[in-house]
């Protein structure tokens, strides 16, 4: 079963357009029933099953709730080869990212960082809307490019949040 189907969302026509409020309600309802504690000690077979179900529900919820993970999931489900370990040579994007990451690193006040953060979150908002349109149009190569960009913008956001400490990617 796909993640959308687990929460009763239609995959078509646009799997990216998820009402996150509805998702939250449905997840809570489902997890209440499937919570391992509720089934603990009752029946070993059932307990195991509930454990698995609850893990799946959590994964599905986390994936669908986050635009970046949702876009990555849709790409995988569409059979678009995942953004592998190939080196990216997109000078425009990389230059932009490098500039903003350096701006954060060299920032001297919280205000400097907040300015970058706000500009960045506006960009992300626009990009998420773009991705919705591209998914609707089933333009998978373009969805992939936009998703990579979103990944980098997320990195900028994380770095801004971590300031004045360095942000660790992994």
């Amino acid at each position, binding site marked *: 079963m796909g993640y959308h189907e687990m929460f009763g969302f239609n995959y078509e026509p646009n799997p990216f357009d998820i009402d996150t409020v509805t998702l939250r309600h449905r997840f809570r309802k489902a997890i209440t029933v499937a919570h391992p504690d509720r089934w603990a000690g009752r029946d070993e077979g059932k307990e195991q099953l509930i454990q698995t179900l609850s893990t799946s529900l959590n994964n599905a919820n986390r994936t669908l709730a986050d635009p970046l993970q949702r876009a990555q999931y849709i790409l995988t489900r569409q059979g678009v080869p*995942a*953004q*592998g*370990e*190939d*080196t*990216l*040579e*997109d*000078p425009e*994007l*990389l*230059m932009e*990212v*490098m500039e903003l*990451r*350096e701006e954060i690193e060299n920032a*001297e*006040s919280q205000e400097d960082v907040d300015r970058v953060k706000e500009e960045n979150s506006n960009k992300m908002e626009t990009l998420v809307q773009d991705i919705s349109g591209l998914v609707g149009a089933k333009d998978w190569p373009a969805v992939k490019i936009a998703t*990579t960009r979103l*990944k*980098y913008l*997320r*990195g900028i956001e994380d*770095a801004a949040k*971590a300031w*004045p*400490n*360095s*942000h*660790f*990617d*992994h």
Partner: protein
Amino acid sequence: MYARQLLRAGAALRAPLARASVPLVRTPAITSPVFQTKRLYHEKVIDHYSNPRNVGSLDKALQDVGTGLVGAPACGDVMRLQIQVDEETGVIKDVKFKTFGCGSAIASSSYVTELVKGKTLEEALAIKNTAIAKELSLPPVKLHCSMLAEDAIKSAVKDYRSKRVVKKPTLGPEAVAA
């Protein structure tokens, strides 16, 4: 996952301290607890990470400077590597890098700057990521970091060479003047 949580926890602990005491002086990140509690990285990686060689930038507008800019889209890493070439001998006389990414990516680029300094462009192009990975004992999941460093060198050499190709005007008044 574990490393990330640890680091987050570490960052959260340090953050209020750093802001309260010396707001304008940034604490170096090398005190990250992950290196002390759990040896996730090889010591050579830690060495390059905590004491990176040749960090910085060169003027990319200079004719003898080549700039390589590459990224690892899966991780969201970005790496800039610049070389300054002696135009007579074709030897790389200076090199600088800046990487935003994980410890392995930073260490790979730091190590590669040490490797290429004093080498000719041909020698620099011959550097393989496997040599970087071996030196730093990178685990399989981090091999792409060394590939990124190899690609950064290639990209920098390519940029330098593209500047060498003098585009002679074939039309217009400049062509006559030249």
